[in-house]
């Protein structure tokens, strides 16, 4: 089971506005293998290419060069819709992950069928599914178990983000992608959602990629850490070494690995925390 590669990325390049004066070489030859059960945190300065990497895996960005293999299947040219069978995703903006005007139960029902055929001959939100949704909501401890029929757009960002996270795991994904999914939340809610993330990943034995701009969180959570800089993976630490990592060490690693001194204010700021 362990050490089976789930995701293999080979020589992935992404360009924006190629051939123009504004050309950005956002990913510059990413090679990465992620094995089953790995919970990978990804850090890097603004514009390092973190989101571009996740978007490439999820399929929202067409691949310029390179190959992406998931569970032995070449998904390089598969659509977002097709990849949804194997990949679940939580966006940074809480509004992005749910359908505002649908109820909590309807959103969950949709996610519970992620990647499956949407039949014309079955009810979308069957009564029989409600106990399961209720039980799932109950563990959030946000009092949401009684609000199955509430329009989800009426809930707070934190509540919605917690539900989106639950939704991503109602149907176990081969790969869970989290792109700064707590960045839009206040510190307390952010901590709650991060804690829930860890719980779900552990309980469901998920393989996950989590982008964060907080070095502390990157060290605290997960069992492997990647640092991206200018479209390249410059740090890749796992196991015991990752467990005992400190923020100063991480900064040091970054400075050694990248051509230039760390000047990114955001990265320094979040290291202070």
């Amino acid at each position, binding site marked *: 089971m362990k050490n089976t590669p789930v995701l293999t990325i080979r020589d992935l390049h992404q360009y924006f506005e190629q051939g123009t004066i504004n050309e950005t070489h956002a990913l510059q030859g990413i090679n990465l293998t992620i094995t089953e059960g790995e919970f990978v945190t990804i850090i890097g300065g603004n514009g390092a290419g973190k989101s571009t990497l996740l978007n490439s895996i*999820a399929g*929202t960005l067409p691949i310029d060069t390179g190959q992406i293999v998931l569970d032995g299947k070449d998904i390089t040219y598969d*659509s*977002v*819709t*097709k990849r*949804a*069978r194997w990949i*679940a*995703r939580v*966006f940074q903006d809480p*509004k*992005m*992950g*749910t*359908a*505002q*005007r*649908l109820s909590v139960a*309807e*959103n969950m*029902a*949709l*996610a519970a*069928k*992620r*990647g*499956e*055929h*949407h*039949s*014309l*001959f*079955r*009810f*979308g*939100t069957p009564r029989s599914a409600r106990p399961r949704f209720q039980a799932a909501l109950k563990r959030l401890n946000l009092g949401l178990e009684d609000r199955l029929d509430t329009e989800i757009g009426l809930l707070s960002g934190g509540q919605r983000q917690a539900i989106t996270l639950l*939704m991503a795991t109602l149907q176990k994904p081969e790969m869970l992608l989290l792109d700064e999914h707590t960045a839009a939340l206040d510190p307390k809610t952010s901590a709650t959602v991060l804690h829930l993330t860890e719980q779900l990943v552990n309980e469901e034995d998920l393989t996950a990629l989590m982008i964060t701009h907080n070095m502390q969180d990157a060290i605290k959570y997960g069992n492997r850490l990647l640092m991206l800089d200018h479209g390249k993976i410059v740090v890749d630490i796992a196991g015991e070494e990752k467990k005992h990592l400190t923020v100063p060490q991480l900064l040091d690693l970054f400075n050694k690995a990248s051509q230039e001194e760390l000047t990114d204010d955001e990265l320094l700021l979040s290291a202070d925390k």
Partner: protein
Amino acid sequence: MDILLSSISQGLIWSIMAIGVYLTFRILDIADMTAEGAFPLGAAFAASLIANHANPWLATLVGMLGGMAAGLVSGLLYTRLRIPALLTGILTLTGLYSINLRIMGKANIALLNQTTVFSAFAQFSSTMQVIIVGALLVAVIMVLLVLFFNTEMGLAARAVGDNPDMSAANGVHVANMQIVIYMISNGLIALAGALMAQSNGYADISMGVGTIVIALAAIIIGEVLVRNLTLGKRILTIIIGAIIYRLIIALVLWAGVDPNDLRLFYAALLTVLLAVPLMRQLTKQYNRRRANRIHIKSLNAQAAKEDKAK
């Protein structure tokens, strides 16, 4: 009483169109101009078939299927060729003009003394016939739509309307769902056209002009009456909206407005209706500010009193 009954009969037929327009307008957030071509398309199919003594129900069904085909075309242009929604509608609408002429063979087909879907209730007055058939059809449509939007596919379609990115990330075939909505919408619109031709006793090549404005007005009257409803109840308010709209038109005509000026009136009325939410907001703001002015005045008076006391 006559005006009321005839408004109800016309309103029922218009409500079928309005329900169709509602699906693209509120679920996909598109004002789909295909409607103005699908409406006469349904009428053209139904009238030319009925004029050739076809079964009127079959003729009506063919009209509806024609509308679904028109919706398919617009849906494909919009999703596969990524043509902006407004242009998509105009393209299909323009093409349909020629197609409708081809189907009818001339600009106008009269249906005097032909057997129509309303003939089944020949024992009633012509107005009552339309009310009976219209009410039955509207009821069936409402039940079917509510059922559809509660299936897995219908849920996926609603999600696409709300958040296409999230839907795709959950494995929904976004383009397919949009096409499905386009097809149901224009099928209903063409059905309304087919019924209108039979109720009026003729199909005319230009009968679609301005119809989307009528349909939108019916929808908005319904929404102004009651806000935020589930689909089933929303359909009910659209039906009521369509009937109210016909009543207003009947009263306007009764008051002596030249029928040639009607379309100007349609446009003006819809403009007013579309401005209602803003009016409500402004009224609220006005009232709040007035209350606040009084509040501030009393604060000033209080402060003045304290000054004197010192």
